[in-house]
Every structure is written in structure tokens, then in C-alpha cells.
């Protein structure tokens, strides 16, 4: 029999392994308190470690995984340590989900990492499955706002250290400012509100431009308008970002839509009313809208003020670009009676109508497919 076992060794030199060896994927995103993250671990790997197939039918069902979530989390978290500034952080796992990757189903552990003193350097010690499978790798990625560091951790190299200067303040500033510009450009509701206020700028009750005064009335209107809007949304954006005030997103979005209705109506019926107050009043609400976006961007650790400022600068720059593009056109168009008699009223009605439709949609939570 000794010979028989030996005979099998001949062929195998050419065997290729299309199977990928075992990996887990740990993604971490910095937050003010530490990190949030997701950890994907193959069910195939948890089977020998935790024993998921309880009924022994060689099939791992969602029921078998779901009822063992605590054991899976305890097993995994017992093999991961994260520290900030040399002192250990607390890691908690949330409700697990499933993800189908190219080589099978993985459990997804949402992680919240809280570090008492969230300061550099951040280190991560990984030992999942190394005692069972020497070729297992922990693929760790830290995702900062504009940097990404990845590590393939192995039994020989089981520690990742996140370099402290992941993003320089200048880089952070540029990133957040870019986000601000981007947001105002794709935020069609903000643009529409601004345009509704801009279009009549420089016109008075007579709807006649004061030709002798040149650019002055136009500039004056635009400047007060933009300043009022900016001051207002900066206030609420800051208040919301540092979590002093918070409003339900639906209320914010609906009010933003209503602000467009008001701006449209003013354009039609109350052109002599100064736009600055409308811009200021509703600017407060638009600020909350920006804050919601900011909350979705993962803010870099420990630089909230800088990010807030940068995002705001971005919003202003985006807004200025729109104003600078629109102003010469408006100034040129205002000379023609078509603009005043036909275009303005039509635009006013259209803008107000869009505002009404959005208000209904957002208020009632239905889609009119506009």
C-alpha cells in the first residue's frame, strides 16, 4: 500500500490553482472618533473556524449564519486590534449582511471603531485565521477623503501602521472645496433658486433698467443678494455640521423647493421687494441642505473647522461662477423689451411651477418623474 500512495505524486507538478487562496477584506474610513468600516469574511473560511453548518447538510444557509452572528463577531473581533496613539480603541460590530464576491459568499461585519484619544499613529494588528491557514491574507484598506492606503497582512507581516500625514491640510482643503463646487453645480434646486433671484436684478418696479446708472444697480443687487444668501447658509451649515441644530431631511428638502416657488412668485408679482431678505431667509434652509451633503462626506479626522470652511469656500466659488456666467447675459438681455415683457414672466411661471412640483414630490414623498 505504501507504493500506491506514492503513485499519486507524479502528475501534479502542472496542477494550476484557479481558486484564489483565502482573503478577508477590511475597509476602514476615518471619522472624528476613530473609524467606520466593513469587514468581509468568507463563509467558506468561517466554517472550519466557527462551524456554521450546524445540521451537517453541507449547505450554509442564511439562518445558520444569522443565528451565529454573535459567535462570528466575537471570533473576528477577538483577532483584530486597532490602536490610536498607542492606546487601544474599542471595536463594535453591527448587524451583519451578506455580499457575494467573485469567489463566494462573504459575511459583512459593519464596524465602528472608537478611540479615546483619536491621534496618530493608528495601528492595526490582524490575526484572523492565521492559526488555521498560513496563506490567508487580510487585505486592509484605509480610505481617507483623498488618500487610500492598502495592506496585505500575512502571518509574517500582521501589522499595518497608518501614516499620520495621510492628507496634508492643503490637500484636505482642496478636496473639500472641490466637493462644495461640485455640490452647488449638481444641486439644481440651489441654482434655480439663485437664478430666480438673479434674473430681475437691477430692474425696478417699472421693469425698466436704469440705463444711465450703467452696471451699478445690477452689481448692487447682485452683491447684496449673494452676500445675504452666503451669510445665511454659512450660519446653518456650521450649526448643522457641529450638530447643534438638526432638522429632518424631508422638511429641509421640501422647504428648499418652496423657496423656489417663492422666488418665482416674487419675480412675477413682487419685483420691487428686495431679494436680499428672501435670499437670507431661505439661505438658512439651503444651508441645512448643504450640511446633509457634508454629513455624507466622511470628514477627515480632527479638522472639522477646516473642512467646513473649505466646503463653504467651494460652495461660494461655485456660486460665483454661476453668477459671473449669468450676469453678462442678463445685462445684455435686459436691454431688450422681449426679456422684460415675455421672458421674465414666462420664466417666473416656469420656475414657480417646477418649485411647486418639487414641493409636492418632496412633501408627499412621491415621484412625479420630472
Amino acid at each position, binding site marked *: *500500500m505504501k*507504493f*500506491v500512495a*506514492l*503513485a*499519486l*505524486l*507524479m*502528475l*501534479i*507538478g*502542472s496542477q*494550476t*490553482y*484557479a*481558486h*484564489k*487562496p*483565502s*482573503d478577508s477584506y477590511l475597509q476602514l474610513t476615518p471619522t472624528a472618533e476613530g473609524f467606520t468600516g*466593513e469587514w468581509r469574511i468568507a*463563509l*467558506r473560511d468561517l466554517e*472550519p473556524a466557527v462551524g456554521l453548518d450546524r445540521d451537517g447538510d*453541507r449547505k*450554509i*444557509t*442564511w*439562518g445558520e*449564519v444569522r443565528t451565529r452572528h454573535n459567535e462570528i463577531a466575537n471570533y473576528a473581533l477577538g483577532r483584530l486590534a486597532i490602536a490610536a496613539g498607542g492606546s487601544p480603541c474599542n471595536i463594535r460590530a453591527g448587524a451583519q*449582511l*451578506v*455580499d457575494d*464576491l*467573485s*469567489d*463566494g*459568499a462573504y459575511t*459583512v461585519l459593519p464596524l465602528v471603531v472608537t478611540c479615546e484619544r483619536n491621534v496618530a499613529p493608528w495601528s492595526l494588528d490582524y490575526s484572523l485565521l492565521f492559526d*488555521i*491557514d*498560513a*496563506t*490567508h*491574507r487580510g487585505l486592509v484598506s484605509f480610505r481617507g477623503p483623498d488618500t487610500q492606503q492598502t495592506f*496585505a497582512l500575512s502571518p509574517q507581516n500582521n501589522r499595518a501602521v497608518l501614516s499620520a500625514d495621510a492628507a496634508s491640510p492643503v490637500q484636505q482643503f482642496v478636496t473639500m472645496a472641490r466637493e462644495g463646487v461640485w455640490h452647488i453645480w*449638481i444641486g*439644481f*434646486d440651489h441654482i434655480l433658486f439663485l437664478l430666480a433671484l438673479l434674473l430681475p436684478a437691477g430692474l425696478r418696479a417699472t421693469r425698466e433698467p436704469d440705463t444711465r446708472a450703467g452696471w451699478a444697480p445690477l452689481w448692487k443687487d447682485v452683491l447684496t443678494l449673494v452676500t445675504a444668501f452666503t451669510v445665511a447658509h454659512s450660519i446653518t451649515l456650521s450649526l448643522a455640521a457641529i450638530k447643534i441644530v438638526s432638522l429632518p431631511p424631508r422638511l429641509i428638502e421640501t422647504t428648499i*423647493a418652496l423657496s423656489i416657488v417663492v422666488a418665482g412668485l416674487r419675480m412675477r408679482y413682487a419685483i420691487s421687494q428686495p431679494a436680499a431678505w428672501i435670499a437670507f431667509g431661505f439661505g438658512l434652509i439651503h444651508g441645512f*441642505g448643504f450640511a*446633509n451633503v457634508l454629513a*455624507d462626506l466622511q470628514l477627515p479626522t480632527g479638522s472639522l473647522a477646516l473642512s467646513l470652511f473649505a466646503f463653504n469656500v467651494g460652495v461660494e466659488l461655485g456660486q460665483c461662477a454661476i453668477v459671473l456666467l449669468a450676469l453678462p447675459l442678463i445685462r445684455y438681455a435686459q436691454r431688450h423689451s422681449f426679456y422684460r415683457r415675455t421672458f421674465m414672466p414666462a420664466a417666473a411661471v416656469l420656475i414657480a411651477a417646477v418649485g411647486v*412640483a*418639487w414641493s409636492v*414630490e*418632496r412633501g408627499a414623498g*412621491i*415621484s412625479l418623474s*420630472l
Partner: protein
Amino acid sequence: MTCFNSSTVSPGRHLLPAALAFLCIALLPMRGQAAPYRPASDSVVLATVPARARTSTTGPRDLQTAVVQASADIESARTSGDPRYLGYAQAALAPWRNAKDAPLPVILLRAQIHQHNHSFEAALADLDHALVLDPRNPQARLTRAAIQQVQGNYTAAAADCRSLALLVEPLVTADCMSRVSSHRGAARGAYRKLLAMRDRAAGMEPRQRREIELTLADISMRIGEIETARLHFDQALTATDADAYTLLTFADFLLEQREYRQVVELFERYPDYADLLLRAALASRAINAANAGQLSQRLREQYAAHQRRGDFVPSRDYARFLLDIEGKASAALDAALFNWKSQREPADALIVVRAAIATGQPAAAAPVVTFVREQGLEDVRLLPLLSHILPERRT
């Protein structure tokens, strides 16, 4: 990315101009993999546990248990094609693995793990060491013969096969010799000899029979005896339970015969054998099956995931994937030539030559041409392609 941000999307944004929507869609792939989900019910099957799944989680404490466990793991790796078992074997041997004066059984297992990982030089170093410790060790000889044959080092392989003669039963020696000599211009003789010995042998152990039948099938294929090869494959497939290497060589045989539907069926019957995925993807493409794109995508993602580990080594299968699925001939040629440096079986030669022709750089296949000439390598699939490269080639 701000586009389609869950908590800020409001219905009114449907009005976004088409260009912006397009931009957002274009940016979507940057957001990464498919989203995690919560399965609809407890009875949803998420994964299957392989027959040979490992149950023990604590590493063995004593050498004897560790060696038994690691041998079983290596056998599982071979049968299932899943390299996780090689990781299990390494972990089981961990306390002894890196010791300079590791015991002989550990050195032999370590050599096999290296062999499976295609670290042939490390494997050969271990085997040389093992044969110094025990010159009459048949396992070390046999493993070394197998590696040398894969490397195209036929003279050394034949020497190891010959020295097996007094150590193991004749059929094992014959199998070893036939495999080597059939690559060196004596294929028909090698086939006849092995066939005669097989017919005389009685009560062969199933795995050994499978081994012999695969050798016979391989030689038949290379000399163009297709129907004979098919008979031997049938014998090999029924000799034992499903086995990764048998399935993959059989799938390659079917592909060469353009029996695409059988390849697809084979994969459907054995979906857990990852080696079959490439073959199934190639076959589905050939018959324009609906899932061809999906299979290719799965393969693409698997290779990408493997590359992220940092220990990816281009294999001949990867070169085939690049050439036949991705249509990246020059990348395929690089991969094939890289693979050729360590592995020189006819299939390795074939992919180099095919990629070289596809890139319009037949000269790139020069190392293969030289090798085939020097060794007198016999393979009906290879020769027509070689004449393609060198029309003036003399035989």
C-alpha cells in the same frame, strides 16, 4: 461622490440634465463592489461546504499528528483544486516548518507545498536535501522526477525514474518513465509499454488507476489519437470520485475537440471546481451562450482579487484568459513567457506560440522553438503552429 448620495437624493433631482446623469453613471463603477444585502429568508443557501472541509481548528501539537494532518490537507488541495488546503497544511506544520534541521517527513511535505505553489526551485532544494538524508526515499525521487519533467529537464527526470526501479512496484516506475520518454520523441513506444503493463497489473488501487489512465490519455492526445484518449479519460473519470486535475485536463481535451456543450455541462455538474470556470467561459463564448459575459466577468474579478493579495504569479491559465477572453495578446505573451521560465509542458509551449502569433511577433516564441527542437518534443497540436512561425523549419 455626491451623485446618488442616499440621504440627499430627493425626487426633484430627476430633472438633472442628462449630461450630469451620464457623468454620475460613468462615475458609479468607482464606488466598488456589489452592495451587501440581507437574504430574503433563513432557508437561502449562501455557500456549500466541500466534502473534505477541515473541522479541526487547533493546530496539532505533536509531529506525528501534524504530518498526518498536513498530508491529508495536501491530498485535499489536489482533489479539490482549492489552495486553502495548502494554507492549512502549512499552518499544521508551522512549528517545524522553518526549522533548519526539520525532520524528513516535514521536508517532504514542505517540498510538495512548494511544488503546488509552483515554487519549483524551493521544492527541488528540499528534495535534494531529503535525498541526502535518505537516498532511497521513493517519495522524494518521484516528486523530484515530476518537477523535473514539468520543467522540461527530461534527462534528470529520467534518471530519477530509473532509480525508482528497485524502490517501488514496476507500474509506478513505468508510469514515470513513460511520461518522460513520451515527451522525448518516443511517445508511441511509451504508450504501448505502459498499456501492456496496465493490462498485466491486477487489483490496482483506484487513484493509481486514474493516474495511469491520465498518462495514457495525455500521450494519446499528443500523438493525435483522439478516440483512444477519450476512452482513457472515461476510465480515469470513473476510477475515483471527482478530482480537480482530472476534470481540468478532460475539459481541456473537450475544448480542443470543440465539444463546447460538454464543457459547459461539465462545469454545471461541478461548479465548485474553479479550474473549470476558465474552460466554461471559453466554451460559452465559442457557442455564444447567454452567460458567456457573466462567466468572463467572474473570472476577471477573481484574477483581480487574486492580484490584490500581492502574491499573484501569472500562470498558463492566466495567459489563456488574457489571450482568449480579454483579447490582450501582448499581455498574454508576457504572461506566457513568464510562465515558460518555470514550466515547460506542451501546454505551456502552446500558449507562448499562440500568443506570439497573435501579437505578430513570432520571434518572441524563439525560446520555445529552441526547446522543442532540442528535446524533440512530440505534440500534434504544437507542430502545425510551429511551422506557422518558421515556414523554413527543417524536421
